[in-house]
């Protein structure tokens, strides 16, 4: 069984344009989905859910969102944490105000609210580019976090200044609140991650995606072929913020349960997600997942190896872990600036020829 497209003929443009043109890829993808949906929920325990899989899925959604903006449309953003906070506070206000409405609707609405806020902060992108735009989005980050800390209405005047997710259920299963089971947390995040990844893929292969990439690669040429930079950039900000808002809503309601704006959604989050897409690969759906996996899983793995295997003290391990992660980021940027997605693509190209490369 070789990995190649020979003999796998396409007879329509529809088939030629599909996401996984090679049969083996397609089957592999279905197999992974089947395992993720059918096997993992049965065996997952709370350690795996809370330390590994749930944060991985949530950050993958945020990375997808930022990748649409930065990787596909070429607009640098350091406001991811702030936009995640918008999603979190929006879902909190909605959950409290309309307890009867299903939580899924709230999460999607929170994404929509974040999309509007994102478009608002995307307006400077029409005049400024690159580093200057990054600074403008940085302002969004600090302003939004400050807003959620200073205006008590957002946290419903609670004494601690925190927001707490009340219990909400889907078909009788609790998905938020302290009584949530590990598999329920995992499943709701998985559904959102898979659905949003599929939507991101569709958007980026269609005409909207081409507009974004045209603006990214050469904005003057994009304009000359009829791309309106205003709508292209703002739609990128809107879609990106929609994804990031949903990630923020899930992070607060499903994963954390309680949050405080400057702690949960500080500038660290913005950089974390930015590192994810840089390491994973700009302009790649797979890269968003790879980057999220790398930065979520690596610290967990290192902690397990250093503390459990070598028996080092926890604080020493924590410091070493930071150093190793940082060194690995630098290493990756030097060796493969296009990220894990590029490494994966190269591997696939080599595999197509294997075992007869000449």
């Amino acid at each position, binding site marked *: 069984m070789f990995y190649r497209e020979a003999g796998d003929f396409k007879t329509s443009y*529809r088939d030629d344009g599909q996401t996984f043109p090679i049969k083996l890829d397609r089957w592999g993808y279905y197999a992974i989905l089947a395992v993720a949906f059918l096997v993992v929920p049965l065996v997952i325990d709370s350690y795996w859910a809370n330390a590994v899989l749930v944060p991985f899925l949530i950050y993958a959604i945020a990375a997808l969102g930022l990748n649409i903006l930065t990787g596909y449309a070429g607009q640098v953003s350091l406001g991811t944490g702030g936009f995640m906070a918008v999603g979190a506070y929006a879902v909190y206000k909605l959950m409290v105000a309309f307890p009867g409405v299903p939580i899924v609707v709230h999460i999607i609405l929170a994404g929509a609210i974040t999309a509007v806020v994102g478009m608002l902060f995307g307006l400077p992108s029409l005049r400024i580019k690159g580093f200057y735009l990054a600074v403008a989005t940085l302002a969004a980050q600090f302003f939004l976090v400050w807003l959620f800390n200073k205006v008590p209405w957002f946290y419903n005047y609670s004494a601690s200044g925190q927001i707490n997710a009340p219990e909400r259920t889907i078909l009788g299963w609790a998905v938020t609140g302290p009584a949530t089971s590990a598999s329920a947390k995992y499943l709701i995040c998985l559904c959102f991650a898979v659905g949003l990844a599929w*939507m991101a893929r569709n958007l980026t292969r269609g*005409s909207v995606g*081409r507009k974004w*990439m045209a603006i990214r690669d050469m904005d003057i040429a994009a304009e000359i072929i009829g791309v309106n930079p205003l709508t292209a950039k703002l739609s990128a900000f809107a879609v990106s913020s929609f994804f990031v808002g949903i990630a923020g809503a899930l992070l607060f309601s499903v994963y954390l349960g309680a949050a405080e704006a400057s702690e949960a959604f500080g500038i660290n989050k913005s950089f974390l997600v930015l590192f994810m897409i840089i390491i994973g690969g700009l302009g790649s759906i797979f890269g968003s997942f790879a980057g999220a996996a790398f930065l979520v899983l690596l610290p967990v793995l290192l902690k397990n190896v250093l503390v459990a295997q070598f028996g080092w003290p926890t604080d020493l391990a924590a410091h070493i872990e930071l150093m190793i992660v940082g060194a690995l980021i630098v290493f990756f940027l030097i060796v493969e600036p296009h990220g894990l997605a590029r490494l994966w693509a190269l591997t696939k190209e080599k595999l197509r020829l294997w075992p007869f490369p000449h």
Partner: protein
Amino acid sequence: MTQTTITPDGRQIGDVLMDLRNITLRFGGVTAIKDISFDIREGEIRAIIGPNGAGKSSMLNVISGFYVPQEGEIWFKGYRRGPMKPYEVARLGIARTFQNIALFDGMSVLDNIMTGRLNMMKAPIWSQALWWGRAEREEVENREQVEKIIDFLEIQNIRKTPVGRLPYGLKKRVELARALAAEPKILLLDEPMAGMNVEEKEDMCRFILDVNDEFGTTIALIEHDMGVVMDLSDRVVVMDYGRKIGDGTPDEVRNNPEVISAYLGVAHE
């Protein structure tokens, strides 16, 4: 008042498609284009020539909407065109290529050419997100049109290659393909043969003639290779220091004393 002329090689040239009247363009104190008028008729190949710095590219930028002239009127298809953004001009059916290739390096050849058809793809964003209904239908329909152009320009074997990996001559051809994909009324070519060897030039000439012949596209081109210009074009505008010094068929222009002096210099007494 319909005027139709038949060229010696049997192509039909119709009415005035674009009329530029008294265009003046200034950058601060510099007058790049000074009171220039000329027209482009339907189906013809119109060349703009002139020494370096004559204002040819500025003229093309005025037509494609990058620069808004301080004075003068642009009439297109019988209507006066107000000041427009480049993307609005593109939607009128005016496509162009650039002197320095302006392709989207991160995308494949196919995707690059597909961007030429963005104005024909109007599926709402939710339809695209779900890849259902109109979005998918449009994608396939436009792909069929793009494949015709790929066949026409003989670039089938590179359709999935990222543009950044292509050699110069092919990039120029892909850029032409992208402009053609928009099914333009007027195609503006800014030095389509710059930096090419003789063979590539011959190919490019063939493609330009074929485009004009098969699709009936009106073409306005800037070119420095006089042999190419004289062979290809039906009428030539000659510019020098922002003024128009000649306008007519290649033969008329070739014998125009002012043109000769602009290119070769004037003999001093």
